């Protein structure tokens, strides 16, 4: 359980987080979503006690991070996979982190196996690809077998196979009853990973919802129609109460009539139909609708 309450973080004149409140509950993969610069990383740093909030609080398992004894047993986090000493081996890196929290050495070996890094355990990390560093960061996060996990943009640098692996991995962690917070600036990524979403923009909460609800509430549902006799069809459909918008490519975007009704109507009048496609707004569209304003405002302000 992660609870952020009225969190404000200013860096000089810049307000990175502006009165943010939300809770992340166990048993779900919660996506932490927002455009670049929205305040996701800053919020995560405050949760980890790395940055001191200007005001407000962040608590993990009902405690402030500084109160946690051997915190890696309670919270595992991956903020920046490249934050490694280039001259240290993967195993030595993991071992040094494990020792700082009294974590047994066998966990180091287990985490290297789990993340598929055993064969490179004794190699210095300077030769690692970004994907390998991500895996090492995940190994660090899991060392203490913590009930709360946070990952900042974990998909960056992973190949297709790695992305599939990590998605399943997050789901397994949540199914285990853990609290999993995963940040991303890509809605498409979160749609496939997260079942809950916390969306922020300019340091403020925009939405705290489920992925399903967000899709449901997006108003843009229509049917795309392509026909050689467009003008006739527009008249016919509008007579039945539909709203028709003509697209640049000649297609007709129809709301107020569903695809079967449009098909029947065309058949009745002997009009050829080249395409008839029911469309729902993608999650990406819903996300852009939500955050568009916050992005625009920033662009205008700067």
């Amino acid at each position, binding site marked *: 359980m992660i609870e952020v309450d009225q969190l404000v973080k200013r860096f000089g004149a810049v307000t990175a987080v502006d009165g943010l409140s939300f809770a992340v509950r166990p048993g779900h993969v919660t996506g932490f979503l927002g455009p670049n610069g929205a305040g996701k990383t800053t919020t995560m*740093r405050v949760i*980890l*006690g*790395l*940055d*001191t909030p200007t005001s407000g609080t962040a608590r993990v*398992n009902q405690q402030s*991070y*500084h109160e*946690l*004894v*051997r*915190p*890696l*047993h*309670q*919270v595992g*986090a991956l*903020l*920046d996979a*490249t*934050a*490694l*000493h*280039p*001259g*240290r*081996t993967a195993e*030595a*890196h993991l*071992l*040094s*982190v494990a*020792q*700082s*929290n*009294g974590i047994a050495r066998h966990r180091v070996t287990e985490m290297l196996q789990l993340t598929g890094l055993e064969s490179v355990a004794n190699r210095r990390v300077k030769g690692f690809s970004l994907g390998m560093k991500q895996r090492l960061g995940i190994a*660090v996060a899991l060392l203490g077998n913590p*009930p709360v996990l946070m990952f900042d943009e974990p998909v960056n640098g992973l190949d297709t196979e790695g992305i599939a692996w990590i998605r399943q991995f997050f789901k397994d962690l949540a199914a285990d009853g853990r609290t999993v917070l995963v940040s991303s600036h890509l809605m498409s990524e979160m749609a496939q990973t997260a079942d809950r979403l916390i969306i922020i923009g300019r340091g403020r909460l925009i939405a705290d919802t489920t992925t399903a609800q967000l899709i449901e509430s997006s108003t843009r549902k229509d049917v795309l129609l392509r026909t050689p006799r467009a003008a006739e069809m527009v008249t016919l459909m509008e007579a039945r109460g539909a709203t028709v918008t003509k697209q640049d490519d000649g297609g007709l975007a129809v709301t107020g009539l569903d695809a079967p009704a449009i098909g029947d109507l065309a058949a009745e009048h002997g009009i050829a139909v080249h395409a008839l496609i029911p469309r729902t707004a993608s999650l990406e569209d819903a996300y852009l609708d939500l955050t568009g304003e916050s992005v625009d405002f920033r662009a205008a302000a700067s």
Partner: protein
Amino acid sequence: MTAPAVPLTVRARDVLVSEWTKLRSVRSTHWTMLVAVVTPIGLSALVAVTLANTPRNGPAVDPLLPGLLSLEYAVLAVGVLGVLAFSTEYSTGLIRTTFASVPRRRAVLAAKAAVIGAVTLVAGELVAFVSFALVQAVLSRRHLSVSLSHPGVAGAVLATGLLMFVVATMGVGLGAIVRHTAGGIAALVGLIFLPAILGLLPAPWGGRVGRFTLLDAARQVTALHPATNLFAPALSLLVLLSWPAVTLLVAALMITRRDA
């Protein structure tokens, strides 16, 4: 969920062991320590040979001087090692993993200083006694040597061995304060050598100011015949140890106040 009570001593040991792993798992540590041990031993032997070959009628030379002179260069190597302990973590971002693992940042500072301090103390004493033996072996041919049992000699050699510890732990503090490698090294070199210029002021100001500088304090505690215009050796030892102590104190104050 309630965390099991973990005694403070166990947590302190955890951080020490972790920092020890970090120190020994990078190659630069091994190279630096090799340079810091081999160079001064070789240098002091060289200085001793030069001393042994200077004309007898020249000014009296402190038979412990070669050991000290050679160390003044070696301490820079371990000073850099000290600076790197924090500066590499800040420059790579690893410090965030460290502080997320150990939110008590002063414990991290103390552990880094303790681990590097222990290593450099052992290495420093090794260098001091090996250099001493080597230098006296060279000087004995000219009957300039002193034995370890001679009053004040053992203490002076022990104090010589302290120098690496002093500069390395000061480096740890500066690394935590400055957080950049180049800046930290510049600060270290500046704090060691710039005040030494003040010691060159005309008398009596040279001594009055100079006795507070790290280098003059070091010369005073390691000399067989301490200078009369500086603090007595016991007080000079205090001055010498104050340099890393004050640096680490400032680091301890700053380390919790800034965002990592």
